[in-house]
């Protein structure tokens, strides 16, 4: 019996930055052998991005890179060189999956695109993921996920009120939507190949994948012409619904997120907060929605001097959805994430013990795990070129000198 779901699956991974590496991380953490093909000539930009071990920049000190690249090996090849291409082709028979996330013309230039690889390995599964897809007038769009979050509508639905400037989601938001779709695509394609023997090419536009998290807004626009905008924390389903300031803790502001879904929950909320029966403006869900500003003020006053954690315990015990608005210090000491086993300290070759996000799911029979910390750049060159491809030490040294392995 196999220990991991994907034991025996081989992935040649030319991806970089966010979407591709997070996708192949799903495979690596579940037992697939993932070899990342990197290059010092064109390092993954996340290797150069913060946070760094001891806040010191370096090619092997970024936790940004490390978090997305557990359970992988790293080799370095300067793909612009013909000998590097030959080495890629020697690895090709081993690979079940080739994944890449360059802008569309890069692999064609190196003659490593699907048409070339398929001719040598018809059953190959290949994933290309770029910002806007392999075809179309904007295929060469040079952006990254932060811009994609604006382009695919998320900035516009984030903010306090229509007409006010947006308050965008943090970072490259769509980089955390697309990988789950890409991983589904690869897993289903693997299973399809197992059943039929047929490989295939998957062209994933991160734009097109990301729009699935906005689907109702788009369906609505096409159906009615309505353009959804920012709405603060206003909800048409719940009242109250929002974040309410609580007592400060250690000089830092604390907020409580709270949502009330029914009259029963409303009564439970009042009881849990020890509040006298509220006035008639809040008597029903419809009334509370009608009087949102007053309602927010009322709830805000009830919690303002209290501790957010104590409020959470009291409200949840009464069956009301509530939790502190947590920052990145809070989530590292959160009992629920802890109990799920979410955080891992892995001993990285250069960084030493470092904090990694774990998996957001658990399989009972074949659980994945963060099998190894992120590789240093080219950490597995000797292992892959020597042991796997059978190159002798002198040849590897020569290829390094020629900056083919680089």
């Amino acid at each position, binding site marked *: 019996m196999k220990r991991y779901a994907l034991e025996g699956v081989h992935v040649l991974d030319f991806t970089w930055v*966010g979407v591709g590496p997070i996708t192949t991380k799903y495979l690596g953490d579940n037992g697939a052998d993932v070899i990342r093909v990197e290059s010092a000539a064109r390092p993954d930009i*996340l290797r150069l*991005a*913060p*946070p760094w071990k001891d*806040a010191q920049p370096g090619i092997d000190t970024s936790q940004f890179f490390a978090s997305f690249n557990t359970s992988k090996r790293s080799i370095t090849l300067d793909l612009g060189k013909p000998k590097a291409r030959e080495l890629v082709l020697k690895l090709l028979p081993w690979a079940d999956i080739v994944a890449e996330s360059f802008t569309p013309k890069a692999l064609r230039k190196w003659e490593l695109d699907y048409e070339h690889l398929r001719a040598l390995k018809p059953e190959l599964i290949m994933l290309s993921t770029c910002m806007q*897809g392999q075809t179309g*007038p904007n*295929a060469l769009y040079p952006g990254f996920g932060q*811009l*994609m979050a*604006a*382009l695919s509508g*998320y900035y516009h*639905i984030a903010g*306090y009120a229509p007409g006010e400037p947006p*308050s*965008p989601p*943090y970072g490259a*938001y769509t980089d955390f*939507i697309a990988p*789950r779709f890409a991983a589904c695509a690869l897993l*289903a*394609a693997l*299973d399809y190949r197992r059943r039929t023997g047929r*490989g*295939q*090419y998957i*062209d994933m536009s991160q734009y097109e994948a990301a729009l699935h*998290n906005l689907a109702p*807004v*788009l369906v609505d626009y096409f159906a009615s012409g309505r*353009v959804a*905008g920012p709405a*603060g*924390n*206003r909800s048409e389903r719940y009242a109250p619904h929002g*974040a309410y300031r609580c007592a400060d803790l250690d000089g830092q502001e604390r*907020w409580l*997120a709270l949502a009330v879904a029914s009259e029963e929950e409303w009564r439970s909320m009042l009881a849990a907060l020890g509040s006298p029966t509220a006035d008639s403006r809040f008597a029903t869900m419809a009334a509370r929605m009608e009087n949102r500003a007053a309602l927010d003020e009322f709830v805000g006053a009830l919690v303002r001097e209290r501790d957010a954690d104590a409020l959470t315990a009291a409200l949840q015990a009464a*069956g009301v*959805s509530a*939790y502190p*608005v947590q920052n*990145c210090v809070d*989530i590292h000491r*959160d*009992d*629920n*994430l802890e*109990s*799920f086993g979410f955080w891992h300290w892995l001993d990285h070759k250069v960084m030493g013990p*470092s*904090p990694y996000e774990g998996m*957001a799911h*658990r*399989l*009972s*029979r074949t659980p*994945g795990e963060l099998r190894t910390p992120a590789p240093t750049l080219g950490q597995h060159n000797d292992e892959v070129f020597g042991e796997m491809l059978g190159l002798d030490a002198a040849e590897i040294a020569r290829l390094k000198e020629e900056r083919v392995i680089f």
Partner: protein
Amino acid sequence: MGSELLSGFRMLDLADEKGALCSKIFADMGADVIKVEPPQGCSTRRIPPFVDDVPDAERSLYFIAYQAGKRSVTLNLDSPDGRALLEDLVRKSDFLLESFPVGYLESIGLGYERLAELNPRIIHTSITPFGDTGPGKNYKACDIVSWAAGGPMFLMGEEGKPPLEMSLPQAALHAGAEAAVASLLAHYSREIEGHGQRVVVDMQACVAWTLMNEQAMPILHGDYIRRSGVHYTAIGTRRKLVYACKDGYISTVLAGGSGVGTTSMKGLVEWMAGSGFAADWMITKNWATWVPGILMKATDADREEIADLEDRVQRFFNTMTKREIYAEALKRRILLAPVATAADIADDVQLKARNYFVRVEHDTLGRTLTLPGAFAKFSVTPVGPGRRAPRLGEHNGEVWGELLGIDGARLARLRAIGAI
């Protein structure tokens, strides 16, 4: 004409909104997804807004968008006959997806152990707000509460005002997509080894996976980011991410550095210089080494340049529309995007060129609706929404009659006693 990709596999979907995107991905890939709804209908049927703002079980836009391509049966799990029917369905299915309170299925005798007894191949995927073991395993979490618990809410909004979520709540969608990945991992293993398994998804953890590089900032750099509206605040500076223009906003990243960053800055400065908006220092600047506040600490001199640059860029963009700016940015390879609205997205040339949107007949509503199309283009097994979301109980006849072989008389009896 569903996709061939997962054709022949069946998923029972008993989940609320937390599972909707999971089974939607499965349906798009050709699996037979049967929504097993309580007699009053899945709660996603009641999520506003509604088509034409008419509240109705068939008109929720959320339901229409995320339940497309699935079948619907009604089943009362409170009734012993209803539970027996679910057991019969489990025998004929490959996946069971649910988001009940932790322990609920066990309490009605349908926990994973029982499901595996009925069908050892079954993959039972549970989506939970806070996992199934911790102190919060019985906690409730509306979407905003998961958004808060996982971390991203803290980073959204303006200083002095409440933290925010987006107006289309996102937490359940992340959990649903994660459940799809996890279920497919279990599926791949099952098809080789013959055994199903239990999958538990933790929604708070799914949301924490949107924090990008921020999770480890406090540990490695000793501090965390505060919400700051349209700015990104890190490494000793505030960088503006969003600029007003004539008809809305655009977003751009003013930083040089690696190849694309330098190309972008040069392209922008050249464009601005053409209409007199660029300062002399911008024209002579070596952008290749200029990434303050993003990849390197900002000095006082950097901060002065940032302020001047942001001010000039703002004045420049004030003279044009989103569409004009984006079109020129594409030509000049500037790292920029419009802050797009649904209208902009619907009209986008790239999506049109790739035939992204799909029109689906909604005979229920007597009209055609447009849905996002394939989440990826597959060369052999195209995916995407094949048919509209189901009416409540629309497939009772098909599923109970044809799939389970229940005859008309028994069906009538099950209806009469409220099992279906």
